[in-house]
């Protein structure tokens, strides 16, 4: 959009200039605007326009002046624009509504200034300047559509295209390629290069990123991304001149959980998605704005689908949650949606084999069995991918059946659902940037929530915040202190005996992040009370700063605790006669008695189906509308991108239908009606895309008298790439596990 505007503007101005000159321009040179031969004269001829049409900043760019004294005024094409000191010329132009073409500049990465595409003319400067690297100075007069600037861009584009192969028809970036777009807008209509093009050997970066290095224009965005955001020093620049190339120096795979993002930031087709290679063109795809459910971060994603297939997943910009990155798991697990799907209701016969039946029969069998057992023997477990609506329906249904043993897997048997601050990331993900000391208790954010880890890394990189870590030895991509492995270290800090205590108490904005893996421990309450002691002593919970955070693991956890999915008794599953698993694959089913009747409602044949007596096929998150609450308490919605497979139904519809067959009809028939019901239980789930912070801090909780055990903290996520039923079905994730996790 912005580029198109600028291009049309450039065309318009060129038309004005062409008319007088074209009369004497007999020999047509490579420069499409012949008056560029004499830039000084044409620049002098241009007088500042009298009445300026209003320009709006590019892409809603805004600026906040923290200190009004710092504001300086520059002129972009004659428009005065106020910017804070320290901004670059390019940012000033963006604020003035001029989109400057660029390849190497990326707002979230450091400035390299090596592509030279953003050259603009600055008055009293002898040469065009690279606007991305030039700080704006007071009173600077920037000209973006003068003949000099145009000629500079044309020349740069010609150099860039010199060694760029002409394989757009077979390039996966085709249609969304910056070089393609900008050469249409700013490039020359012919090239003068007649020699052989350079070719570069492709690099093997692993199963996710496909490289065609001949297409590389050496913008070094990927190198900067890898070192700055992903925190791996894998990529680098080798050679000089036309021998310059991006590489790993020694042949090695890119072992970062964020490596997929280099596909997005690569302006050309040098780095493309390997699983998506030659699968579809971007203009064939239908984009659906949705939410990622593979972890508790709830990254904003766009699901690109073609017909009934999810073709790829891309990040969506959300400054508060994932900025514009997503983890590799989020980006590449989509092929799991096409494998191991449950597509028909099935009943296990007397011979132990499953038989596909109609929904009528399946629901009738379940309804009959659920009436034969005692209410207290009914147990319901929601899986880690369940949406809030279906969990509400499940809870209402089982409550109507007389049972109150419903919980969500991963929350443990004594979840603290009373105080929202007890299970949320109270600072918010973006709030972590203000912190100066981190204490990670039993959590490995790099594998549990890669986007939160990226935020911590950003903070550490920018403010040199200290990070202390208690837990099993693990891999961080920033500097950290390994304080200990178990609760003893935590007790030492609480008693002030540990050296880290002083760092914590001297910090301005200290942050403690407790991993949700602790929920499964028996001494969970004791650990939390120790952590709260530290919080009290270190003045971590203040009215303006609640630095005591819990980092959840699964997408469904926060919503389930908001809805109060708390089991009534601890050992309910050991005496259960009827177990309703709503996509719960990580619940341990060994304890379920062998005569219990297990109903599995879900979308993948994963771990629990093999114990199930009845299988009810449900929709995956790409196929249904559902509300998910992320770790920081922000309710977000998924939208259906593709139709359900086979005879599957939405989760809440299955429970609603089952309730009617069982004779306890739930009073809602639409999603809207369920949301009205949710409003009475947890109204915060209806405030979409808005973080609802906890109102009370966890300090109101009475201290528990339990003792902490000396068992060291465990790892909550063994394999980053395989955490739920969809990722376990995914071939790409299996490849990643095999290739990237081997040590």
């Amino acid at each position: 959009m912005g580029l198109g505007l600028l291009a049309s503007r450039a065309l318009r101005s060129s038309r004005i200039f062409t008319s007088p000159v074209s009369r004497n321009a007999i020999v047509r040179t490579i420069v499409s605007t012949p008056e560029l031969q004499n830039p000084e004269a044409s620049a002098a001829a241009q007088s500042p326009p009298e009445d300026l049409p209003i320009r709006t900043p590019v892409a809603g760019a805004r600026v906040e002046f923290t200190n009004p004294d710092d504001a300086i005024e520059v002129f972009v094409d004659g428009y005065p624009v106020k910017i804070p000191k320290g901004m670059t010329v390019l940012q000033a132009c963006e604020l003035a509504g001029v989109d400057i073409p660029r390849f190497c500049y990326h707002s979230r990465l450091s400035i390299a200034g090596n592509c030279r595409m953003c050259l603009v003319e600055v008055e009293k400067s002898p040469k065009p300047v690279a606007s991305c690297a030039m700080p704006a100075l007071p009173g600077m007069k920037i000209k973006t559509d003068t003949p000099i600037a145009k000629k500079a861009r044309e020349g740069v584009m010609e150099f860039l295209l010199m060694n760029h192969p002409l394989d757009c028809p077979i390039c996966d970036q085709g249609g969304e390629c910056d070089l393609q777009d900008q050469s249409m807008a700013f490039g020359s209509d012919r090239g003068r290069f007649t020699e052989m093009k350079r070719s570069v050997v492709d690099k093997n970066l692993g199963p996710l990123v496909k490289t065609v290095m001949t297409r590389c224009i050496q913008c070094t965005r990927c190198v900067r991304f890898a070192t700055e955001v992903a925190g791996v020093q894998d990529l680098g620049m080798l050679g000089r001149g036309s021998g310059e190339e991006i590489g790993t120096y020694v042949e090695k795979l890119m072992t970062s959980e964020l490596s997929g993002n280099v596909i997005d930031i690569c302006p050309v087709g040098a780095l493309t998605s390997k699983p998506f290679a030659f699968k579809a063109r971007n203009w064939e795809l239908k984009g659906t704005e949705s939410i990622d459910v593979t972890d508790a971060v709830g990254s904003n994603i766009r699901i690109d689908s073609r017909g009934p297939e999810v073709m790829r997943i891309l990040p969506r910009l959300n400054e508060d949650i994932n900025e514009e990155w997503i983890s590799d798991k989020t980006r590449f697990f989509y092929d799991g949606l096409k494998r191991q799907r449950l597509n028909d209701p099935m009943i296990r016969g007397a011979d132990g084999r499953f038989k596909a039946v109609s929904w009528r029969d399946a629901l009738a069998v379940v309804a009959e069995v659920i009436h034969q057992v005692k209410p207290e023997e009914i147990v319901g477990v929601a899986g880690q991918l369940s949406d809030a609506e279906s969990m509400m329906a499940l809870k209402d249904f089982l409550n109507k059946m007389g049972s109150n043993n419903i919980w969500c897997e991963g929350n443990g048997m004594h979840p603290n659902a009373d105080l929202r601050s007890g299970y949320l990331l109270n600072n918010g993900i973006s709030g972590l940037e203000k912190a100066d000391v981190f204490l990670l208790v039993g959590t490995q954010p790099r594998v549990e929530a890669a986007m939160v880890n990226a935020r911590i890394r950003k903070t550490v990189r920018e403010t040199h915040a200290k990070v202390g870590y208690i837990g099993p030895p693990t891999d961080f991509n920033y500097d950290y202190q390994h304080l200990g492995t178990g609760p003893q270290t935590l007790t030492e800090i609480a008693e002030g005996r540990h050296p880290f205590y002083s760092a914590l108490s001297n910090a301005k904005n200290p942050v403690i992040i407790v991993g949700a893996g602790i929920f499964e421990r028996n001494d969970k309450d004791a650990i939390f009370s120790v952590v709260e002691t530290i919080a009290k002593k270190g003045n971590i919970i203040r009215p303006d700063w609640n630095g005591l955070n819990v980092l959840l693991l699964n997408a469904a956890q926060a919503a389930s605790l908001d809805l109060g999915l708390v089991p009534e008794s601890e050992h309910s599953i050991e005496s259960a006669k009827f177990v309703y698993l709503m996509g719960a694959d990580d619940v341990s089913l060994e304890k379920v008695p062998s005569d219990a009747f297990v109903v599995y409602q879900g979308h993948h044949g994963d771990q629990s189906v093999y114990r199930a007596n009845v299988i009810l096929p449900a929709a995956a998150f790409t196929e249904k509308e559902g509300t998910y609450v992320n770790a920081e308490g922000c309710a977000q919605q998924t939208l259906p991108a593709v139709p359900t497979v086979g005879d599957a139904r939405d989760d809440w519809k299955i429970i609603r239908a089952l309730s009617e067959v069982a004779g306890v009809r739930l009073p809602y028939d639409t999603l809207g009606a369920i949301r009205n019901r949710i409003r009475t239980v947890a109204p915060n789930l209806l405030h979409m895309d808005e973080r609802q912070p906890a109102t009370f801090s966890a300090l109101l909780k009475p201290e528990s008298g339990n003792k902490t055990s000396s068992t060291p903290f465990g790892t909550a996520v063994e394999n980053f790439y395989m955490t739920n039923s969809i990722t376990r079905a995914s071939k790409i994730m299996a490849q990643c596990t095999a290739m990237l996790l081997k040590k």
Partner: protein
Amino acid sequence: MSFRGVKVPANSASLEEARTRVFDFFRSACRSIPTIMEIYNLEDVVSPSQLRTSIASQIRNHSHITNPKVIDMLLFKGLEELNNVVEHAKQRHHIIGQYVVGRGGLVQDLGMKDQGASNFLKNFYDSNYF
């Protein structure tokens, strides 16, 4: 065998004449049933008597009509339809859909099971999208 030459005479003078014409039409339709069975391969789905019943019921649907002009119009439509069927202008699934299965659809006998069920449940059994 074509009915192309068959023409409906201008108008029936009386109800009595219209009535005899209807019977004539029914007879000619019944006579063409074996041909229809053969060209559309209907042996395994339907018997001639069922088809006869189906035609008769279509005629009985209009039994209340007493206006000879309307009867003539309906007869013409019926003749046209019969002509199309006999000329193989239709396909097998048309015949099955219109005269064998009928308007109720294939699952008409299941209606009894869902008696008392809410619209939600009936829709649920049909598809996920409602």
